[in-house]
């Protein structure tokens, strides 16, 4: 076994440096070797070191470790090198899977581990979906087991990678960014103390940017706040704080974060930046829903309703609906389109409903809803577009229904305002029983999700129509990839090994 292992080490080394005893000239041999390593190396190593089944025992505890340390080191370094030199997603995924198995070995070898982390973070932030997931798993594993050494730097690097990679947002990249947010939140939940330090520094950074923008009042400084990176960072911290909610350590950060978000909304409150405002409100909603914190968000939505003149005939007709999820700023022509107003009303409906849903069981709901009710009534009086009126009337009805429900219930209650525990119990009870709004919301949510699904598929169909040119580009890219591989492998056997990887990937999934 050790012989084969040594040979493998040499080959992995050889493929990148070609300075070894064995030079692999035949790509078929190379492929089979790599394949073998990935398949069996872990089992072979553990057998060799006489490790027992549970993975979490460090291999360095084995009596044979000293003897084999150098070989393992070489092999492990080779894997990292291989990982960084590969470009095809499926291949990377397979190697990553192997690296995942090998994590205990890396943990014993700090230098190699650092290299591995670096390339893992790169794959986590830029790779394709499965690659990202696998990279995250490995990262998480490493950080969980050697928190005190790696967590700090990993978190920092991951955050930087996140910021770097959320510069542009499109329907394609949005899921990736969401994934990064979620996984980063997981990483931050490993150690709240460390996360507090990070969050404090980065939220303060955001606040400083905002303050500069407020004080200088120049276009460039606005730009430093009104961009995707900033918004995604706000969203990330909202997500982090709401994922790790019942945490005494992180709770003090709610206040500055909310202040920064609201300050961001109020920086340039013009209609062209409505999409950005909607993003911010969404972040607030997420935060206040999960952390039981009250953050006023409705005024910012109602202000839009109040300021925008929906009666005005749209200047331009357009076919394409505006996707508010992937824009921050509207162009001037956009503002005149019908699609803009349609989209805006829809967004307002969604967000108001969502926000009220988060507070639906609160005992102060009627007070919370009062300005909205007044505003909606005024809107219905003014507005003459039947479509918008229909939506808003529905919303109004639902809110009023919930209002009267809460009012009725709390009137029967026997406790006074000062009785905090009784109120908490009451709210819990209401939440369990459900209010009209929560019921409606769950129905609506299902419908809405279906709608979004339909929309997406519709878009795909649209893309199908436009496909020819896009496909050609992709095909070219693939060809280029293949060429590279050919240069390396010097054979066309890569196709079948691709298939192998795929099948294996499926099996493991």
């Amino acid at each position, binding site marked *: 076994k050790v012989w084969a292992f040594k040979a493998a080490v040499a080959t992995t080394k050889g493929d990148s440096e070609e300075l070894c005893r064995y030079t692999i000239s035949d790509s078929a041999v190379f492929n089979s070797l790599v394949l073998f390593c990935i398949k069996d190396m872990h089992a072979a190593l553990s057998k060799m070191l006489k490790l027992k089944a549970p993975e*979490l*025992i460090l291999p360095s505890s084995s009596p044979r470790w000293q003897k084999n340390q150098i070989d393992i080191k070489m092999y492990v370094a080779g894997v990292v090198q291989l990982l960084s030199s590969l470009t095809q997603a499926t291949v990377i995924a397979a190697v990553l899977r192997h690296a995942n198995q090998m994590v205990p070995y890396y943990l014993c070898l700090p230098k190699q581990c650092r290299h591995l982390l670096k390339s893992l973070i790169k794959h986590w932030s830029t790779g394709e979906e499965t690659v990202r997931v696998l990279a995250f798993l490995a990262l998480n594993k490493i950080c*969980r*087991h050697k*928190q005190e050494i790696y967590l700090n730097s990993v978190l920092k690097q991951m955050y930087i990678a996140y910021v770097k990679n959320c510069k542009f947002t499109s329907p394609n990249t949005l899921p990736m960014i969401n994934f990064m947010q979620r996984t980063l939140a*997981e990483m931050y*939940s*490993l150690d709240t103390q*460390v996360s*507090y*330090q990070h969050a*404090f520094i980065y939220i*303060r950074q955001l*606040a400083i940017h*905002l*303050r500069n923008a*407020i*004080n200088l009042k120049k276009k460039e400084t606005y730009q430093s706040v009104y961009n995707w990176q900033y918004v995604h960072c706000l969203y990330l911290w909202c997500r982090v704080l709401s*994922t790790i909610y019942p945490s005494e*350590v992180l709770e*003090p950060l*709610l*206040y*500055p974060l*909310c*202040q*920064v978000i*609201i*300050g961001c909304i109020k920086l340039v*409150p013009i209609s062209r930046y409505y999409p950005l405002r909607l993003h911010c409100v969404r972040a607030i909603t997420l935060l*206040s829903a999960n952390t*039981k*914190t*009250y*953050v*006023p968000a*409705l*005024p*910012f939505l*109602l*202000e839009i309703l109040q300021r925008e003149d929906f009666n005005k005939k749209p200047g331009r007709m357009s076919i394409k609906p505006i996707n508010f999820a992937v824009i921050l700023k509207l162009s001037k022509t956009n503002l005149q389109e019908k699609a803009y107003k349609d989209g805006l009303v829809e967004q307002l409906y969604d967000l108001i409903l969502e926000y009220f849903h988060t*507070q639906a069981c*609160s*005992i*102060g709901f009627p*007070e*919370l809803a*009062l*300005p909205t*009710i*007044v505003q909606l009534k005024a809107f219905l009086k003014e507005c003459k577009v039947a479509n918008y009126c229909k939506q808003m009337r529905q919303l109004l009805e639902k809110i009023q229904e919930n209002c009267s429900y809460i009012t009725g219930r*709390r*009137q029967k*209650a*026997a*406790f*006074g*305002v*000062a009785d*905090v525990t009784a109120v908490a119990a009451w709210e819990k009870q209401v939440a369990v029983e459900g209010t009209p709004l929560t019921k409606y919301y769950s129905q609506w949510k299902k419908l809405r999700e279906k709608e979004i699904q339909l929309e997406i598929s519709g878009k795909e169909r649209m893309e199908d129509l436009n496909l020819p040119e896009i496909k050609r580009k992709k095909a070219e890219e693939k060809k280029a990839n293949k060429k590279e591989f050919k240069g390396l492998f010097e054979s066309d056997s890569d196709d079948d090994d691709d298939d192998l990887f795929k099948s294996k990937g499926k099996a493991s999934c």
Partner: protein
Amino acid sequence: LTPLQNLFNPPSFRKLLKTSNLKLENKLKNRQFKQQSSAKKQRKEQRKLRQAITDVSHKTLKPLERYKKKPGEEEEDEEEFLESLPVDMMDDDDLEQIRAMAKKASFLTRDISSCTPVHAKKRKSEQPVKKYEKMPRKMQQEEEKELIHLLPIKDKSGLIPQSMEKPVVPEAEEEEEPVDQDELNQEEEPEIVPLLTPQEQLELRAQKLTEKKLHMASLSSAVLADPHVNIKKLKELRAMLMETDPCVAVTVRKLVMVSLLEVFKDIVPSYRIRPLTEEEKAAKVKKETLQLREFEEGLVSQYKFYLEDLEQTVKDWKQKKQKRSQAVSLQSYKGLAEVAIRCICDLLVALPHFNFHNNIVVMVVPLMRDSVSEMCCGAVSKLLKQDKLGQASLAVVKVISGMVKGRNYNVKPEVLNCLLCLRIKEVEMRKDTEDTAPKKKFMSFKEKRTNLSRMQRKWKKAEEKLQKELLEAEASESKDKKIKLHTETLNIVFLIYFRILKKAQKSILLPSVLEGLARFAHLINLEFFDDLLSVLYGLITSGDLTYRESLHCILTSFHILSGQGDVLNIDPLKFYNHLYKTLLTLHAGGRNEDTAIVLQCLDVMLTKRRKQVTLQRAQGFLKRLSTLSLHLLPDSSVGILAANRALMHTFPKCDILLDNEMQGSGVYLPELDVPEYCNPQNTALWELHLLKRHYHPMVRKFAAHLMKGAPSEGSGALSMELSRRTPVQLFEDYSVKDMSFNPPVEHFTIGDAFLDSELKTLINAALQNESELTSLDFTSQQTQQETRMTAN
């Protein structure tokens, strides 16, 4: 003047009776003179000390820097000037003492970086004196006559043996000498070689500029060193305003303007100089007085010319005329005029007591509507804020009034906003009381004769005389006079306001008018109240106003009503309803600044008028305000909640809003716009529970406090500092305008994260054990992690 009065003990009556009036007068005068002179001495000592300190700190400056036109330099010079005067009036031991003190101070404050020891100064001071003696001879070679015959005089006056700042002046002179000689050489140069390469021209220009700068510096420092003697140099300096050399004209003119400004600021006396009458001119006077008169005359005339020059510059710029020699191109006029305007504005603020101030006002006010309005408005506001006498304010207000009317209300709102800076706190309300008051003091002769005995009369007479004298001794700014001026000023201000309200309701000035009315409402004359109120109400109901303006209307009317207006029988119900109705226009998305006015309104309308407000109304407002605070930015929320606290204190019966019991009939109608009829007694302040979960710590605090019924003591009470702040102050304290975090976000490091001390010890113990149980630790953490992940 209070110390003077305190020190002066009135003589006993017996003494008064015995001594004749003449003696008494003499005695009084002597005493006053003594006190004055001792006060002077004290002041001088202090000044000396200060000077010594600054002198040492300035010592480290490089000599070249000194010659750049900086205001700081002038200040330094000024102190020299002050220093040079009073020495002869001092006692010798005083001087010694001061010197000792000065040395001490210099030793303490000496800059460590300067390598020269303190004693080196003595040596230095000898050298310049030697050089000084040569100076007249050198100067004779030069063509500039005035310099020549003036400098020796300066030497004489400046020769104070061993004074600390002595070296500074001669050093300055040292620097000048070589340059002056160079100047002669270079002035000939351009005539010989008129055509130069651009680079050479630049160099030449720089050279010329430095020359001129040095010249200016020497002139102005000479004037500052001894203004009484060197007043003629001022003329020379002013002549430089007419600089004709085209390549440096603009810069030089600007520099001269600014340096003249600083010089004038420093040498102008603290009194107004009046022209001499014929008699005075004819009368023979002492030498010193003559010198003083000459100085004053020269100063006034130079100042006048200077102002005229400035005015001319501004005028030229406005009329786009190319005049005053071809030295200055049309484009650079703007810069030149801007500097001139800045100078004028500075003078406006700095010398409100001096001659020609009215002329300056007349010059500045029309400029307030031009492109330079920001500067001018700023200067005027500053003047109004600083003005203690009221005379300058009156002048400004008069001119503004004329302008507003003359322009047919077509002026910038900033002009009227300046008026908000007026420092007027009281005016005479009724003339009758004012007139009768002073008369009581002095009885008529007849009364005295009938009422008092001989002895008493004599005593009284003496007393009155004394009092009169004291009054005269007091500065002219007596309270009566001030109030009279203020009254006149305010009358004009209101005239402006009322004119606009009547004639130009649609103009852009309306907001500032309303703001001004709200500010000075308590000073409005009773006669106008009825009309004003109806006008204001008309404005509110017309619906043309913005929210802020209508708030100002409400605030104004309640200020009127809360002052002397309480005699009027007007029902302000409409105003209450209007405020109640519009409260919900305030929200986090809109303007946050309006909250301050709302808070003021609430204070005037509810807390201050508690007797006229029904409980229903108070409750209605309380409920709506609580609801409102859900939808505001945190600073406004804190302000509103604090106002609610005040409401709960003034109307203790409001605590039924904390109970959940039905009182009487009806249900709460939150959407109704009349506070009386919305049945507020049948609801409760449930929104406090939402506010208790607010993200802002201060809002949470206030909500919890209100929930307990706003107790002033006990566990639910606020801290002393918080409970003392007014709602408006709290609103300002927690302002979120510039992203400042108040209360600050506490940043703790890992070790100190836990406030609980027990927990801390536990953690420390755990941390120590960790090194041994590494493997165990991993598994436990892992299981935790997994459970958490599955939960998600």
